[in-house]
Protein backbone atom coordinates (compact mmCIF):
# COMPACT_ATOMS: atom_id res chain seq x y z
CA UNK A 1 0.00 0.00 0.00
CA UNK A 2 2.86 2.34 0.79
CA UNK A 3 5.03 1.86 -2.28
CA UNK A 4 6.51 5.17 -3.34
CA UNK A 5 4.85 6.85 -6.26
CA UNK A 6 6.53 9.29 -8.58
CA UNK A 7 5.14 12.80 -8.39
CA UNK A 8 1.88 12.68 -10.26
CA UNK A 9 1.56 14.32 -13.60
CA UNK A 10 -2.18 13.61 -13.45
CA UNK A 11 -4.21 15.84 -11.22
CA UNK A 12 -7.64 17.28 -11.01
CA UNK A 13 -6.43 20.39 -12.74
CA UNK A 14 -5.48 18.54 -15.89
CA UNK A 15 -9.04 17.53 -16.65
CA UNK A 16 -9.00 14.60 -19.06
CA UNK A 17 -7.93 11.81 -18.74
CA UNK A 18 -7.94 11.80 -14.94
CA UNK A 19 -10.89 14.01 -14.17
CA UNK A 20 -11.99 11.59 -11.44
CA UNK A 21 -8.67 11.50 -9.58
CA UNK A 22 -8.82 13.35 -6.27
CA UNK A 23 -5.73 15.44 -5.60
CA UNK A 24 -4.68 13.41 -2.53
CA UNK A 25 -4.19 10.22 -4.58
CA UNK A 26 -1.25 9.55 -6.86
CA UNK A 27 -2.96 7.28 -9.36
CA UNK A 28 -6.51 6.22 -10.22
CA UNK A 29 -5.50 2.69 -9.26
CA UNK A 30 -4.46 3.79 -5.77
CA UNK A 31 -7.71 5.70 -5.38
CA UNK A 32 -9.74 2.69 -6.48
CA UNK A 33 -7.88 0.26 -4.18
CA UNK A 34 -8.38 2.62 -1.23
CA UNK A 35 -12.12 2.73 -1.89
CA UNK A 36 -12.27 -1.05 -1.99
CA UNK A 37 -10.32 -1.39 1.26
CA UNK A 38 -12.66 1.07 2.96
CA UNK A 39 -15.66 -0.84 1.69
CA UNK A 40 -14.29 -4.16 2.95
CA UNK A 41 -13.73 -2.61 6.40
CA UNK A 42 -17.37 -1.48 6.35
CA UNK A 43 -18.52 -4.96 5.29
CA UNK A 44 -16.50 -6.43 8.17
CA UNK A 45 -18.37 -4.20 10.62
CA UNK A 46 -21.62 -5.37 9.00
CA UNK A 47 -20.67 -8.97 9.75
CA UNK A 48 -20.16 -8.01 13.39
CA UNK A 49 -23.43 -6.02 13.37
CA UNK A 50 -25.36 -9.12 12.27
CA UNK A 51 -23.08 -11.14 14.53
CA UNK A 52 -24.98 -10.05 17.64
CA UNK A 53 -28.16 -11.63 16.32
CA UNK A 54 -26.30 -14.71 15.10
CA UNK A 55 -24.94 -14.99 18.66
CA UNK A 56 -28.48 -14.91 20.05
CA UNK A 57 -29.45 -17.57 17.51
CA UNK A 58 -26.52 -19.79 18.50
CA UNK A 59 -27.26 -19.54 22.21
CA UNK A 60 -30.93 -20.45 21.78
CA UNK A 61 -30.17 -23.20 19.31
CA UNK A 62 -27.50 -24.81 21.48
CA UNK A 63 -29.35 -24.54 24.77
CA UNK A 64 -32.92 -25.10 23.64
CA UNK A 65 -33.10 -26.73 20.22
CA UNK A 66 -36.81 -27.43 20.71
CA UNK A 67 -37.48 -23.77 19.85
CA UNK A 68 -36.24 -24.33 16.30
CA UNK A 69 -37.69 -27.79 15.79
CA UNK A 70 -41.14 -26.59 16.88
CA UNK A 71 -40.88 -23.17 15.25
CA UNK A 72 -39.66 -23.92 11.74
CA UNK A 73 -42.91 -25.73 10.82
CA UNK A 74 -44.46 -22.28 10.58
CA UNK A 75 -42.12 -20.98 7.88
CA UNK A 76 -42.73 -21.58 4.18
CA UNK A 77 -39.74 -23.55 2.83
CA UNK A 78 -40.61 -23.11 -0.90
CA UNK A 79 -40.99 -19.33 -0.51
CA UNK A 80 -37.65 -19.17 1.32
CA UNK A 81 -36.01 -21.20 -1.46
CA UNK A 82 -37.53 -18.96 -4.15
CA UNK A 83 -36.17 -15.89 -2.36
CA UNK A 84 -32.73 -17.50 -2.11
CA UNK A 85 -32.68 -18.10 -5.87
CA UNK A 86 -33.96 -14.56 -6.56
CA UNK A 87 -31.20 -13.05 -4.42
CA UNK A 88 -28.45 -15.24 -5.90
CA UNK A 89 -29.66 -14.32 -9.39
CA UNK A 90 -29.58 -10.62 -8.45
CA UNK A 91 -25.99 -11.12 -7.25
CA UNK A 92 -25.14 -12.52 -10.69
CA UNK A 93 -26.72 -9.55 -12.48
CA UNK A 94 -24.91 -7.18 -10.08
CA UNK A 95 -21.56 -8.87 -10.82
CA UNK A 96 -22.33 -8.59 -14.54
CA UNK A 97 -23.27 -4.93 -14.03
CA UNK A 98 -19.87 -4.22 -12.44
CA UNK A 99 -18.28 -5.92 -15.43
CA UNK A 100 -20.35 -3.81 -17.84
CA UNK A 101 -19.30 -0.66 -15.96
CA UNK A 102 -15.62 -1.71 -16.10
CA UNK A 103 -15.90 -2.16 -19.87
CA UNK A 104 -17.76 1.13 -20.32
CA UNK A 105 -20.88 -0.58 -21.68
CA UNK A 106 -23.53 1.87 -20.63
CA UNK A 107 -26.61 0.18 -22.08
CA UNK A 108 -25.91 -3.22 -20.55
CA UNK A 109 -25.04 -1.50 -17.26
CA UNK A 110 -28.44 0.21 -17.18
CA UNK A 111 -30.22 -3.03 -18.12
CA UNK A 112 -28.38 -5.19 -15.57
CA UNK A 113 -28.87 -2.68 -12.76
CA UNK A 114 -32.58 -2.54 -13.57
CA UNK A 115 -32.83 -6.35 -13.36
CA UNK A 116 -30.94 -6.31 -10.04
CA UNK A 117 -33.29 -3.63 -8.71
CA UNK A 118 -36.36 -5.62 -9.77
CA UNK A 119 -34.97 -8.77 -8.10
CA UNK A 120 -34.49 -6.81 -4.87
CA UNK A 121 -38.10 -5.65 -5.06
CA UNK A 122 -39.26 -9.21 -5.80
CA UNK A 123 -37.39 -10.43 -2.72
CA UNK A 124 -39.14 -7.82 -0.58
CA UNK A 125 -42.48 -8.75 -2.16
CA UNK A 126 -42.09 -12.41 -1.20
CA UNK A 127 -40.94 -11.35 2.27
CA UNK A 128 -44.05 -9.17 2.59
CA UNK A 129 -46.27 -12.14 1.66
CA UNK A 130 -44.58 -14.20 4.38
CA UNK A 131 -44.85 -11.44 7.00
CA UNK A 132 -48.52 -10.87 6.12
CA UNK A 133 -49.20 -14.56 6.64
CA UNK A 134 -47.59 -14.44 10.10
CA UNK A 135 -49.55 -11.30 10.96
CA UNK A 136 -52.87 -12.84 9.87
CA UNK A 137 -52.34 -15.75 12.28
CA UNK A 138 -51.18 -13.48 15.14
CA UNK A 139 -47.67 -14.89 15.07
CA UNK A 140 -45.79 -11.57 15.23
CA UNK A 141 -44.26 -11.03 18.69
CA UNK A 142 -45.84 -7.98 20.32
CA UNK A 143 -48.53 -7.91 17.66
CA UNK A 144 -51.33 -6.73 19.98
CA UNK A 145 -49.21 -3.71 20.97
CA UNK A 146 -48.25 -2.93 17.37
CA UNK A 147 -51.87 -3.15 16.24
CA UNK A 148 -52.84 -0.76 19.04
CA UNK A 149 -50.19 1.80 18.02
CA UNK A 150 -51.63 1.93 14.52
CA UNK A 151 -55.28 2.07 15.60
CA UNK A 152 -57.21 4.92 17.14
CA UNK A 153 -59.08 2.72 19.54
CA UNK A 154 -59.06 2.97 23.29
CA UNK A 155 -56.19 1.19 25.04
CA UNK A 156 -56.81 -2.55 25.15
CA UNK A 157 -56.19 -4.68 28.18
CA UNK A 158 -52.43 -5.13 28.63
CA UNK A 159 -51.54 -8.04 26.37
CA UNK A 160 -47.86 -8.58 25.96
CA UNK A 161 -47.70 -12.32 25.72
CA UNK A 162 -47.48 -14.23 22.46
CA UNK A 163 -50.93 -15.54 21.57
CA UNK A 164 -51.12 -16.98 18.05
CA UNK A 165 -54.36 -18.15 16.49
CA UNK A 166 -54.95 -21.52 18.19
CA UNK A 167 -56.92 -23.27 15.43
CA UNK A 168 -54.19 -22.46 12.91
CA UNK A 169 -51.34 -23.55 15.18
CA UNK A 170 -53.06 -26.85 16.05
CA UNK A 171 -53.88 -27.45 12.37
CA UNK A 172 -50.27 -26.81 11.35
CA UNK A 173 -48.85 -29.04 14.10
CA UNK A 174 -51.32 -31.81 13.20
CA UNK A 175 -50.10 -31.63 9.60
CA UNK A 176 -46.59 -32.29 10.93
CA UNK A 177 -47.76 -35.36 12.86
CA UNK A 178 -48.41 -33.78 16.25
CA UNK A 179 -52.09 -34.53 16.73
CA UNK A 180 -54.17 -34.38 19.90
CA UNK A 181 -51.66 -32.47 22.00
CA UNK A 182 -52.50 -31.93 25.66
CA UNK A 183 -52.95 -28.35 26.81
CA UNK A 184 -49.52 -28.43 28.48
CA UNK A 185 -47.84 -29.71 25.31
CA UNK A 186 -49.63 -27.09 23.25
CA UNK A 187 -48.59 -24.29 25.63
CA UNK A 188 -44.97 -25.42 25.53
CA UNK A 189 -44.97 -25.42 21.73
CA UNK A 190 -46.50 -21.95 21.61
CA UNK A 191 -43.77 -20.69 23.94
CA UNK A 192 -41.15 -22.16 21.61
CA UNK A 193 -42.91 -20.65 18.60
CA UNK A 194 -42.91 -17.22 20.27
CA UNK A 195 -39.14 -17.29 20.82
CA UNK A 196 -38.57 -18.63 17.32
CA UNK A 197 -40.66 -15.85 15.79
CA UNK A 198 -38.72 -13.29 17.83
CA UNK A 199 -35.45 -14.58 16.38
CA UNK A 200 -36.93 -14.97 12.90
CA UNK A 201 -38.30 -11.43 12.77
CA UNK A 202 -35.15 -9.83 14.25
CA UNK A 203 -32.84 -11.49 11.75
CA UNK A 204 -35.03 -11.24 8.63
CA UNK A 205 -36.18 -7.68 9.40
CA UNK A 206 -32.59 -6.47 9.87
CA UNK A 207 -31.75 -8.21 6.61
CA UNK A 208 -34.79 -6.66 4.90
CA UNK A 209 -33.64 -3.20 6.04
CA UNK A 210 -30.34 -3.94 4.30
CA UNK A 211 -32.19 -5.03 1.16
CA UNK A 212 -34.16 -1.76 1.21
CA UNK A 213 -30.92 0.24 1.62
CA UNK A 214 -29.40 -1.81 -1.21
CA UNK A 215 -32.34 -1.03 -3.47
CA UNK A 216 -31.88 2.65 -2.61
CA UNK A 217 -28.21 2.74 -3.59
CA UNK A 218 -28.78 0.60 -6.70
CA UNK A 219 -31.42 3.13 -7.76
CA UNK A 220 -28.86 5.90 -7.17
CA UNK A 221 -26.19 4.31 -9.39
CA UNK A 222 -28.87 3.42 -11.97
CA UNK A 223 -29.63 7.13 -12.32
CA UNK A 224 -25.88 7.81 -12.60
CA UNK A 225 -25.55 5.10 -15.25
CA UNK A 226 -28.44 6.55 -17.28
CA UNK A 227 -26.72 9.93 -17.11
CA UNK A 228 -23.46 8.36 -18.29
CA UNK A 229 -21.43 9.08 -15.14
CA UNK A 230 -19.49 5.81 -15.27
CA UNK A 231 -16.87 4.69 -17.73
CA UNK A 232 -13.77 2.52 -18.01
CA UNK A 233 -11.77 4.82 -15.73
CA UNK A 234 -14.47 5.52 -13.16
CA UNK A 235 -16.84 2.83 -11.93
CA UNK A 236 -16.04 2.90 -8.20
CA UNK A 237 -19.62 3.62 -7.01
CA UNK A 238 -20.95 0.69 -9.08
CA UNK A 239 -18.30 -1.59 -7.59
CA UNK A 240 -18.98 -0.41 -4.00
CA UNK A 241 -22.74 -0.91 -4.34
CA UNK A 242 -21.98 -4.31 -5.86
CA UNK A 243 -19.89 -5.31 -2.83
CA UNK A 244 -22.67 -4.22 -0.48
CA UNK A 245 -25.32 -6.11 -2.45
CA UNK A 246 -23.23 -9.29 -2.45
CA UNK A 247 -22.84 -9.04 1.34
CA UNK A 248 -26.64 -8.81 1.70
CA UNK A 249 -26.85 -11.94 -0.47
CA UNK A 250 -24.17 -13.65 1.62
CA UNK A 251 -26.09 -13.04 4.86
CA UNK A 252 -29.26 -14.48 3.35
CA UNK A 253 -27.24 -17.54 2.26
CA UNK A 254 -26.78 -18.20 6.00
CA UNK A 255 -30.25 -17.13 7.13
CA UNK A 256 -32.09 -19.46 4.76
CA UNK A 257 -30.73 -22.78 6.10
CA UNK A 258 -30.56 -21.52 9.70
CA UNK A 259 -34.22 -20.50 9.81
CA UNK A 260 -36.07 -22.51 7.17
CA UNK A 261 -34.12 -25.75 6.78
CA UNK A 262 -34.27 -27.31 10.21
CA UNK A 263 -34.90 -30.98 10.61
Amino acid sequence: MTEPHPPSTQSNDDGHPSAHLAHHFNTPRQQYDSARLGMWIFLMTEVLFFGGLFCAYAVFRANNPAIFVDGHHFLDKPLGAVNTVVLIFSSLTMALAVRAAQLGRRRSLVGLLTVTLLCGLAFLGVKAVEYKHKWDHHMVPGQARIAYWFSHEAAPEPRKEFRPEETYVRERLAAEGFESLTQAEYTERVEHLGTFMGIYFSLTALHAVHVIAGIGVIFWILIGAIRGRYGRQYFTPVDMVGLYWHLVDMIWIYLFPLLYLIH
Partner: protein
Amino acid sequence: MEPSSPPCSQDCGEAPLAHVVEVRVLLAVFGALIVLTAITVAVSYFDFGALNLTVALGVATLKAAMVALWFMHLRYDGGLNAFVFLVGVVFLGLFLAITMLDSVQYHPNVQSWEQRK
Protein backbone atom coordinates in the same frame (compact mmCIF):
# COMPACT_ATOMS: atom_id res chain seq x y z
CA MET B 1 3.38 5.97 -19.48
CA GLU B 2 1.06 4.83 -22.26
CA PRO B 3 -0.05 1.19 -22.01
CA SER B 4 -0.42 -0.76 -25.21
CA SER B 5 -4.08 -1.52 -24.74
CA PRO B 6 -6.39 -2.18 -27.68
CA PRO B 7 -8.19 0.83 -29.09
CA CYS B 8 -11.23 1.81 -27.06
CA SER B 9 -14.15 4.09 -27.66
CA GLN B 10 -13.82 6.32 -24.59
CA ASP B 11 -11.58 7.10 -21.60
CA CYS B 12 -8.48 5.69 -23.30
CA GLY B 13 -4.92 6.00 -22.25
CA GLU B 14 -4.67 4.42 -18.80
CA ALA B 15 -4.06 0.95 -17.43
CA PRO B 16 -7.23 -0.91 -16.39
CA LEU B 17 -8.18 -0.26 -12.78
CA ALA B 18 -9.21 -3.79 -11.91
CA HIS B 19 -9.52 -7.31 -13.17
CA VAL B 20 -12.56 -7.87 -15.38
CA VAL B 21 -14.10 -11.25 -14.61
CA GLU B 22 -15.12 -13.35 -17.60
CA VAL B 23 -18.86 -13.81 -18.16
CA ARG B 24 -18.52 -17.59 -18.27
CA VAL B 25 -16.79 -17.57 -14.86
CA LEU B 26 -19.64 -15.55 -13.35
CA LEU B 27 -22.21 -17.87 -14.95
CA ALA B 28 -20.36 -20.94 -13.65
CA VAL B 29 -20.35 -19.51 -10.10
CA PHE B 30 -24.07 -18.75 -10.40
CA GLY B 31 -24.74 -22.31 -11.57
CA ALA B 32 -22.75 -23.74 -8.67
CA LEU B 33 -24.63 -21.54 -6.18
CA ILE B 34 -27.99 -22.75 -7.51
CA VAL B 35 -26.88 -26.40 -7.40
CA LEU B 36 -25.64 -25.96 -3.80
CA THR B 37 -28.95 -24.32 -2.85
CA ALA B 38 -30.83 -27.31 -4.32
CA ILE B 39 -28.53 -29.68 -2.40
CA THR B 40 -29.01 -27.90 0.92
CA VAL B 41 -32.81 -27.94 0.47
CA ALA B 42 -32.82 -31.63 -0.53
CA VAL B 43 -30.56 -32.60 2.37
CA SER B 44 -32.87 -30.87 4.86
CA TYR B 45 -35.47 -33.63 4.32
CA PHE B 46 -33.09 -36.25 5.73
CA ASP B 47 -31.95 -36.58 9.30
CA PHE B 48 -28.21 -36.76 9.87
CA GLY B 49 -28.57 -36.16 13.60
CA ALA B 50 -25.92 -33.81 14.93
CA LEU B 51 -24.52 -33.42 11.40
CA ASN B 52 -27.63 -31.53 10.18
CA LEU B 53 -26.27 -28.17 11.30
CA THR B 54 -22.72 -28.97 10.13
CA VAL B 55 -23.93 -29.84 6.63
CA ALA B 56 -26.17 -26.74 6.41
CA LEU B 57 -23.42 -24.40 7.62
CA GLY B 58 -20.78 -26.11 5.48
CA VAL B 59 -22.78 -25.64 2.30
CA ALA B 60 -23.63 -22.04 3.27
CA THR B 61 -19.95 -21.26 3.91
CA LEU B 62 -18.97 -22.76 0.58
CA LYS B 63 -21.59 -20.58 -1.14
CA ALA B 64 -20.51 -17.45 0.76
CA ALA B 65 -16.88 -18.12 -0.16
CA MET B 66 -17.80 -18.42 -3.85
CA VAL B 67 -19.72 -15.12 -3.71
CA ALA B 68 -16.76 -13.40 -2.02
CA LEU B 69 -14.04 -14.86 -4.25
CA TRP B 70 -15.63 -14.32 -7.67
CA PHE B 71 -18.66 -12.01 -7.41
CA MET B 72 -16.81 -9.68 -5.01
CA HIS B 73 -13.45 -10.10 -6.82
CA LEU B 74 -11.63 -11.07 -3.61
CA ARG B 75 -9.70 -13.63 -5.62
CA TYR B 76 -8.22 -10.88 -7.76
CA ASP B 77 -7.45 -8.42 -4.93
CA GLY B 78 -4.29 -8.26 -2.95
CA GLY B 79 -4.64 -10.17 0.32
CA LEU B 80 -5.42 -7.11 2.43
CA ASN B 81 -9.18 -7.01 1.76
CA ALA B 82 -9.54 -10.72 2.48
CA PHE B 83 -7.52 -10.27 5.67
CA VAL B 84 -9.74 -7.41 6.86
CA PHE B 85 -12.88 -9.42 6.20
CA LEU B 86 -11.52 -12.56 7.85
CA VAL B 87 -10.58 -10.54 10.95
CA GLY B 88 -14.30 -9.77 11.28
CA VAL B 89 -15.20 -13.43 10.84
CA VAL B 90 -12.60 -14.51 13.42
CA PHE B 91 -13.93 -12.01 15.94
CA LEU B 92 -17.47 -13.24 15.31
CA GLY B 93 -16.21 -16.75 16.06
CA LEU B 94 -14.62 -15.44 19.26
CA PHE B 95 -17.88 -13.78 20.34
CA LEU B 96 -19.84 -16.96 19.64
CA ALA B 97 -17.35 -19.13 21.49
CA ILE B 98 -17.24 -16.95 24.61
CA THR B 99 -21.02 -16.53 24.66
CA MET B 100 -21.53 -20.27 24.55
CA LEU B 101 -18.99 -21.19 27.21
CA ASP B 102 -21.77 -22.14 29.63
CA SER B 103 -23.76 -24.30 27.21
CA VAL B 104 -22.82 -27.46 29.11
CA GLN B 105 -25.10 -26.25 31.90
CA TYR B 106 -28.07 -26.72 29.61
CA HIS B 107 -27.23 -30.23 28.45
CA PRO B 108 -29.60 -31.94 30.92
CA ASN B 109 -32.52 -29.88 29.57
CA VAL B 110 -31.59 -30.67 25.98
CA GLN B 111 -31.21 -34.37 26.73
CA SER B 112 -34.53 -34.65 28.55
CA TRP B 113 -36.23 -32.92 25.61
CA GLU B 114 -34.57 -35.31 23.14
CA GLN B 115 -35.85 -38.30 25.13
CA ARG B 116 -39.41 -36.95 25.20
CA LYS B 117 -39.36 -36.17 21.47
